[in-house]
């Protein structure tokens, strides 16, 4: 099993989620996060007082997937979250040691 973490632009969330549903991903965790990378921050101006924000808002997706589907998940996110501009985000893939469904106690891929 793989644990996939994707940092994407917030406005791409719905597109990505729909595409992932289409390839059989039944659940994910979504968090609003802030961070920085190569993309420049944004500048806010209040009556001439300029504040530049280094941290930009992003959305973090966390998805647990079986080994067979993991590569397809990464590919789907990469294609649907892509705008071609700096700041589109990153995808990380980790090995997942176990998964347990709390209600039934099932573990392994059946819990996904």
């Amino acid at each position, binding site marked *: 099993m793989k644990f996939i973490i994707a940092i994407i632009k917030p406005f791409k969330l719905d597109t990505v989620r729909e595409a992932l549903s289409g390839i059989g991903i039944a659940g994910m965790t979504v968090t609003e996060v802030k961070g920085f990378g190569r993309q420049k921050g944004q500048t*806010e*101006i*209040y*009556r*001439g*007082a300029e*504040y530049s*924000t280094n941290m930009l808002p992003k959305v973090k997706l966390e998805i647990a997937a079986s080994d067979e589907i993991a590569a397809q998940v990464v590919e789907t996110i990469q294609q649907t979250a892509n705008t071609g501009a700096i700041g589109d985000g990153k995808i990380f893939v980790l090995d997942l040691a176990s998964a347990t469904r709390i209600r039934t106690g099932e573990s392994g891929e059946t819990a996904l």
Partner: protein
Amino acid sequence: MKRILSTTAALATGACLLAAPAFAAPVADAAAAAAEAAPAAFTPTAEMVNKGDVAWMMVSTALVLMMSVPALALFYGGLVRAKNMLSVLMQVLTIVCVAALVWFGWGYSMAFTSTGTPFPALFGGLDKAFLKGVSVTSLAATFSNGVYLPELVFVMFQMTFACITPALIVGAFAERVKFTSLIIFVVAWMTLAYFPIAHMVWYWAGPDFLHAAPTDMGLLWGWGALDFAGGTVVHINAGIAGLIGCLIIGPRIGYKKEPMPPHSLVMTMIGASLLWIGWFGFNAGSALESNAFAALAFVNTFVATAAAGAAWAIIEQITHKKPSLLGAVSGVVAGLVAITPAAGFAHPGTAIILGAVASVICYFFVTTVKNKLGYDDSLDVFGIHAVGGIVGAIGTGIVADPALGGQGWIDYTAPVAKAGEFDMVGQVITQCWAVGTTIVWTGVVSAALFLILKYTLGLRPDAEAETNGLDISEHGERAYN
């Protein structure tokens, strides 16, 4: 100065210009009767009170109160950080409460009487303290011969001005002032700065009495200074006090080092919009009658403000490519401030120019001058109220010119008032004298009071309290839970 007695000028709209035929006859009768029976014998009667005027003035009074709470409180509150939201709301609300009581106690008497005082041109005495002698049968003059208001209406209307003026000051040192010291300052400042300046600018014997008592007037009124609704008394007065306060108190911890963005421009938008609405009471109500001059002040309050809001947005569109809401509402307030002294004098066309010019100048002050000089006028009380007030007060001398469609000034020295001869250069000089007098008077009083408080009770909470936010440290509560 040179105009002292030769041109006893008028604040506002003229009885001689009263066009309504319904009024013409009683005005003439009253004046003629007064002239026959020797000037001093004139006695206003209850029949000279018009119910339309009374209704309009009571509505205006409520509108001006709305400018303080909630409008100013929300406007300011939205501009501070969330941890100081309640402190600003509480300061404004408490100042309104305290100012109303002080007005009842001795404010009205100091501002609008000229007896029982060693300097009747500077401030009044205590003959009407605690509204002594003010009853349902006592009357207050308007700007027309033979037209009166119940004195209680005038007391209340003016009370709302006394409430908002000290509340305006708190924006200059928001987020870092000790609450109790602030309230003590407000009581002392009203007594030593607001009441005398209101007296100097607005007090006079009234159109039916002035010819018999030609020196019974405030100093600046006597000079012929024009201030329709309080450019000097309210805005320059508060703006300068704010500047002095922010200089003496010092900048906020972290000023220029950490971001201090407004926590809710939504609140600021609501507050600014309510200010605009309330300002119709402030400006149009200052006609003291429900007549065409109130309507003139009304339309000027509308269009000058519109021009100022649009002007600020246009400047930002040019300079940043992003016109901001905060910019537009700042322009709106700058326009409201600037048109205040000119509201009943200007033609709507020149009012638009005045509003736009004030907006541009205020933009320059809050974005450039403040940053260059480094003072922390947190919410730009000086940059908008003092600067906009000065532009408006001096501009009034220009836009009031009948040659530009203005209303000129009214000569009340005869029993029936008539239009005075307008001299624009002389008027602008007079306006500058009025502005200068206000700045010096309020500057000296404010500096003395702030310094005394700084070295006695202290003006600002300790660093930890300020860092934690005044809501928790001064008031023991939080705005958002």
